[in-house]
């Protein structure tokens, strides 16, 4: 008997050792449950952060654009006629009014990691007889690379953007038969034409993007799109991509410009992610519930089996509180020990999975981050669930009438 352990602890340990088979069975059950939860959580979190990282690599979390132009029908005061159909106005390419001021304002927000001005518009890339319609993006490379991970995607050449340089995707390079150092002509609908040298080729792993996107210097794009001194949008990177919508609203409120978050522009994608999170939560809930029911049923059986012994403990002067704690402790202990084994099990699953799910080049498909907090939360959660599961049997034991327990 450990001299420093309180009565409840000593009795709880002995009771669990006495029913060792039951105790082990339920600990294994809890361990499996926690293992599944840890594995699923890490897997889904890894999957999501992976998808988000890949997606947000070429999508800015927030894009700030000039407010939409609306048609305002002009009517004389006396005219009673009411226009039933108002044709929406076509949106011409415009600059953000006083964009430097807006940029400074946005960069000052604490949630904003980086912001970069962008001039973008449609154009044609021509080489010899071949031509391709492209989406031209004029950037300031230094600040742009802080928002969009273009630098990691360069597969040939170096990312240099002087006034006569351009960066194109692998698909466009193939279509036009161009390589690093070759010259292409870019034209736009407003009549701008420039001949630029390909300094680098990127591969975003997306055919459409690789075919359409063309990066040029900010000034080059301003000239081509007839937007001298202006920018068409500001791309913003934020700390927490899931908070992008709220931050976008803050920006909208502060600058009077229109700010669209990736959550709004990729609603479909975001819904899919949210559904995934929800199903993960549901799985966790039901696995947790199953473990809790297991613990509760084992303890209920134990209370029934030991009712005479509990009665005699009570007759000897053990208080209701002591009996209650005795059983709560058993639940907490089984939850905690089960969760420790379960965490180890989940960890092992993840390591095995990381070794199996590989890209053809041998790198893991998912970068699974083993976060200590996940294990701590699982352990704390399982202990709590175990304690809660023990509440009903513990109360039942504490309420046992010693006279009835001994007699019956």
């Amino acid at each position, binding site marked *: *008997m*450990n*001299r*420093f*352990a*309180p*009565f409840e602890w*000593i*009795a709880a340990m*002995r*009771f669990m*050792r*006495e029913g060792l088979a039951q105790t082990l069975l339920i600990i294994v059950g809890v361990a499996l449950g926690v293992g599944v939860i840890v594995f699923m959580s890490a897997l889904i979190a890894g999957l999501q952060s992976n998808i988000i990282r890949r997606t947000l690599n070429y999508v800015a979390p927030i894009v700030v654009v000039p407010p939409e132009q609306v048609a305002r029908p002009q009517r004389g005061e006396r005219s009673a006629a009411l226009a039933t159909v108002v044709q929406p106005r076509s949106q011409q390419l415009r600059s953000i009014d006083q964009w430097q001021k807006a940029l400074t304002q946005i960069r000052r927000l604490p949630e904003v990691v980086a912001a970069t001005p962008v001039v973008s518009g449609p154009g044609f890339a021509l080489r010899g007889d071949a031509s391709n319609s492209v989406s031209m993006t004029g950037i300031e490379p230094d600040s742009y690379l802080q928002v969009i991970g273009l630098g990691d995607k360069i597969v040939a050449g170096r990312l240099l953007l002087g006034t006569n340089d351009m960066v194109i995707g692998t698909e466009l390079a193939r279509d036009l038969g161009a390589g690093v150092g070759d010259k292409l002509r870019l034209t736009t609908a407003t009549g701008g034409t420039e001949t630029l040298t390909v300094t680098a080729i990127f591969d975003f792993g997306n055919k459409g993007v690789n075919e359409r996107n063309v990066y040029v210097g900010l000034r080059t794009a301003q000239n081509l799109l007839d937007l001298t001194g202006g920018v068409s949008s500001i791309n913003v990177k934020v700390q927490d991509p899931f908070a992008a919508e709220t931050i976008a609203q803050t920006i909208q409120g502060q600058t009077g410009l229109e700010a669209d978050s990736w959550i709004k522009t990729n609603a479909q994608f975001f819904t899919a992610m949210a559904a995934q999170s929800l199903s993960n939560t549901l799985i966790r809930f039901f696995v947790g519930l199953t473990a809790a029911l297991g613990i509760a049923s084992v303890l209920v059986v134990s209370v029934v089996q030991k009712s*005479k*012994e509990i*009665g*005699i*403990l*009570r*007759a*000897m*002067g*053990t*208080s*209701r509180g*002591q009996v209650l704690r005795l059983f709560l402790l058993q639940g907490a202990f089984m939850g905690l020990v089960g969760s420790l084994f379960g965490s180890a099990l989940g960890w092992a699953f993840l390591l095995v999975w990381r070794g199996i799910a590989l890209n053809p080049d041998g790198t893991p498909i998912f970068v699974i981050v083993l976060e200590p907090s996940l294990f701590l939360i699982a352990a704390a959660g399982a202990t709590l669930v175990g304690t809660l599961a023990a509440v009903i049997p513990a109360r039942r034991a504490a309420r046992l*009438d*010693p*006279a009835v327990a*001994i*007699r019956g």
Partner: protein
Amino acid sequence: MVEAAETLRLEGVRKSYNTGTPLEAEVLHGIDLRLARGEFAALIGPSGSGKSTLLNVIGLLDPPNAGRLLIEGRESSSLDDAQTTRLRGRAIGFVFQYHYLLPAFTALENVMMPVLAARGRPDSEMRATAAELLDKVGLTRWRDKKTAELSGGQQQRVAVARALAMKPALVLADEPTGNLDTQSADGVFEVLRKVNRDGGTTFLIVTHDPRLAQRCDRIIELVDGRIVADRPNVPSGG
């Protein structure tokens, strides 16, 4: 006032079961009983006469429906649940027909259990006291055995030692030898007598066995919930 020498006093104690239902049945019809300190009394009577019920009422396991119950001068009806539990743990020791030892613990630990529950943590003093008690009931050699490894007589002697762990003023024994063969029964009875003689502990022993009752100092006879005879007895046969 109640004299300090009085361990137990019952005045007009009544006990009914299923009160308020058509099945209501009064088991004890006004019991008056006093036990002085150091008495060694037998409670006899036919099955169904209310012996066990009376013992449960005296043991504060079942509250009476009417009448007064005083243990060492303390009125039981004035106590709440926690105080009742405390008084029961401190003043009363139980020995049942079945020993109800905790099989997960050794003989010594079972004897320590009431003190452990009261104090919360084990200490060397309660261990020494428990060892002393086991010595008194002649089980020193078996004190570290799990109770399932002991014989019926030995288990019952552990239960007696446990009943004495809190140094109670009153020990209630319900057929303490009912499950034992004659030889073991004699052994357990001898232990009870010895504790009574050495420590002045008051005993009330429910028994069916006239041979056993004849060895007590006083015989109280209960029939149909009433005390019909209460006489002193000169112990016979040791």
